[in-house]
């Protein structure tokens, strides 16, 4: 990372986790991380390793066990959480909640607020849903609306917790591409937690990889792949490395590696190249790196057999 770029969020020897009366459950220790302007960072790691907890801590919803986070404020960081919103609100009303930090008690929206909300809805292409109720939307549309709400908060930093969970391939790709566009075009610092390895590797500028040693590895996607860091983290989980699904004829491996709930609803039979190329930023690099990941992954699986 370049030294002179401003860090919008920075952690200083941060430890996160939960405490209750009897014990302390530390999930990550001694983290020194930062988020940079204009970069899309994918935060990867298996389920239950503490991705959500770290995001909650970075956004100030939860206090750190030790250490500190700089830049925690509602006007600096907005979040998209996994919480379901079940209120009887229209899309416009929901997005307008993003303006709350700037509104007085009587929540009267100014023309400026209206303009911001309109612009945010256009950015995520949900303008036509303006007056629909939240409960009428599909899961993908709800995620888009939630992202629009976070954008309406006009913060330089955007944290998203599993925005692609439970969505089909089209929606996942759309969301990741949208986030990438937002980071590069509007210069936001965006952190996305996900366990979609394939999408993350292609869209992100930087990867945070949660390890089982309560630390987080960071680096360029390609570097981490070449270092074999992913294999190490995910090998115990039978991780869902989706491009590998093209090798469906190797039935045994298939059954071993994928749990049913992680299978997407579409695209199962596509060849991995077909799945990868439409959204890869650079066909060359994709073709260069994917065989390596997949090759390494399957060699390991084969050895286990």
């Amino acid at each position, binding site marked *: 990372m370049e030294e002179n770029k401003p860090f919008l969020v920075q952690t200083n020897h941060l430890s996160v986790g939960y405490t209750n009366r009897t014990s302390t459950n530390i999930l990550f220790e001694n983290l020194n991380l930062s988020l940079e302007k204009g970069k899309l960072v994918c935060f990867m790691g298996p389920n239950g390793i503490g991705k959500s907890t770290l995001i909650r801590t970075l956004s100030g919803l939860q206090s750190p066990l030790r250490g500190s986070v700089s830049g925690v404020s509602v006007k600096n960081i907005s979040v998209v959480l996994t919480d379901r919103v079940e209120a*009887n*609100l229209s899309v416009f009303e929901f997005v307008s909640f993003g303006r709350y930090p700037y509104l007085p008690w009587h929540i009267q929206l100014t023309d400026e607020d209206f303009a911001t909300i309109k612009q945010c809805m256009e950015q995520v292409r949900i303008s036509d849903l303006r007056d629909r109720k939240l409960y009428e939307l599909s899961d993908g549309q709800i995620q888009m609306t939630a992202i629009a709400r976070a954008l309406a908060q006009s913060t330089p930093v955007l944290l998203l917790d599993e925005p692609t969970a439970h969505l089909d391939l089209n929606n996942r790709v759309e969301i990741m591409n949208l986030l990438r566009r937002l980071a590069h075009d509007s210069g936001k610092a965006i952190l996305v937690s996900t366990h979609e390895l394939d999408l993350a590797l292609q869209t992100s500028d930087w990867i945070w990889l949660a390890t089982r040693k309560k630390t987080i590895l960071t680096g360029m996607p390609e570097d981490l792949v070449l270092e074999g860091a992913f294999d190490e983290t995910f090998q115990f989980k039978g991780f869902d490395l989706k491009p590998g699904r093209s090798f469906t004829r190797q039935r045994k491996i298939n059954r071993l590696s994928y749990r049913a709930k992680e299978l997407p609803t579409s695209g199962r039979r596509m060849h991995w190249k077909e799945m990868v190329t439409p959204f890869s930023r650079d066909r060359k690099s994709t073709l260069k790196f994917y065989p390596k990941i997949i090759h390494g992954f399957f060699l390991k699986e084969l050895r286990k057999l």
Partner: protein
Amino acid sequence: MVISLFLVDVSMGSVSIPFIDFIQIMLGKGTGVYHDIIWKFRMPKALTCALAGSALATGGLMMQTMFRNPLAGPDVLGLSSGSSLLVSILILANGTGIAIIQQFASHPWSVALAASLGASMVFMVIILIAQRVRDNTALLIIGLMIGAGTSSIVSVLQFTSQANDLQLFLIWTLGSVGSASWLEIQILSLVVFSGLAFSLVSIKPLNAFLLGDSYAKSIGVNVKRSRIIIVIGTSLLVGGVTAFCGPIAFVGLAVPHLVRLIVKTNNHKVLLFSVMAGGASLLLMCDIISQLPGSAKILPLNAVTSLVGAPVVIWLVIRQRKITRG
């Protein structure tokens, strides 16, 4: 709607007043017995109705939103039962011969005082707990338990008390808006308006609570503080009304649902005022029914609110299958 119901409520009662006289009196002209009946008896009653209705409904709305639970209502936090407990001690223990209580009970203001005290006692306990407990569901359950506990004490007191006192207490629990004097109305409106002020201040956090505590916090709402403000507001509204009118059932629970059916949004900037108007209208309507127009008899208000309200809520639930949350 509120105003027309208000006028209808004033015009009706156990003594029938000719329409022309009624108009004259309302315009400030008439005198005599009718004038006295209207200004000393019916006006205060109708005013109390409107105040109590909007107060209870607003209290109910705030609780339903805060707990994100459609079944929350002023009874649920145990505030009403807290009032009942102290009033029952006051009225029922009169016969036990403890001098201090006897002296206290003979004072006309004592019931109101006891009810407010009871509500605020429970409310203080709730605030203490609210600071410890993280989620709203736990708080809701605790409120229910406090309510159950206090009502069981009330039952024990009822069981051991004398018939006369029991009747007094029962009349209080049936709810009444007719006994208020102008002075009492001044105090009641002071309490209610300060409670409503708390609710207005809470529009923003109330809306934010619709998204859940985490989102609320992430858009800059101080969750703990706003929760306390909402509890204070609700206690003022419910405690004040219970003190002067007795525990009026159903209004706090049902009005927000009925209003949501009409207004079709959860945005509290719209909802709050609609609920205030809705609560006032509903209680005025119940009061009109309780006077049995055309006859000289009067039904207890609480019975009417439940009789009118319960079927409406059941119909709602069946029609919508589930009540919209928050």
